[in-house]
């Protein structure tokens, strides 16, 4: 699964730490998601989408391996 967290973060001018604090996770989690090393749970995906006021599909995209 790919995601556009980094892009959305840039648009909203947030650092990894800012975003982590806003959704209540560690900075490592944001870092791992942006590097596609960690696929977030549904709950976390929904929280991120809600924060950026986007639908989940606009931020998280299935890729060929899924």
């Amino acid at each position, binding site marked *: 699964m790919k995601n556009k967290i980094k892009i959305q973060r840039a648009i909203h001018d947030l*650092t990894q730490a800012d975003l982590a604090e806003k959704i209540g996770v*560690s900075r490592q*989690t944001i870092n*791992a998601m942006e590097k596609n*090393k960690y696929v977030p749970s549904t709950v976390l995906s929904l929280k991120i989408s809600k924060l950026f006021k986007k639908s989940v599909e606009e931020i998280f995209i299935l890729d060929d391996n899924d």
Partner: protein
Amino acid sequence: MKTNYLLPNKYKTIGWVLLVLGLIFGTFIWSTEYESDLLTIKVLSIFNDDQLFDSNKKLFKIIKNDIIDELAAFAIIFGGLIVGFTKEKIEDEFIYKLRKDSLVWAIIFNYILLAFTIAFVYNFTFFHILVFNMFTPLLFFIIRFNFLKFKSRSHEE
């Protein structure tokens, strides 16, 4: 992230102190060939056979024993459990995954290593392997978990 088996983060320091003390004492006891005589007291032995192949095995007997090695083992076990199973400062699903992955890694690594020593280490030396193996699954888990945490922290944005 809700988990029902993790202790609060504040216990982590106590865990590290216990674990390190246990390891220091454990190494000391191991280096003196388990012959220390610092804390000999009477203890209850549930099953006792002093000599190998002794025919009169006794149940529930009071015997004398130096308990320093028992204390060191307790310190390593409980210290290790506390270190491995207390919450991080920010406990979330990614940390939870790292912990689970580390546990799986530690079990597999430990038994591959044990299988290797079964094949290539013989006689009394193997006794040391058995002693180490009481603690290595927990220690490998702690090392792996902290290594993964450190690795995921090190690359800044």
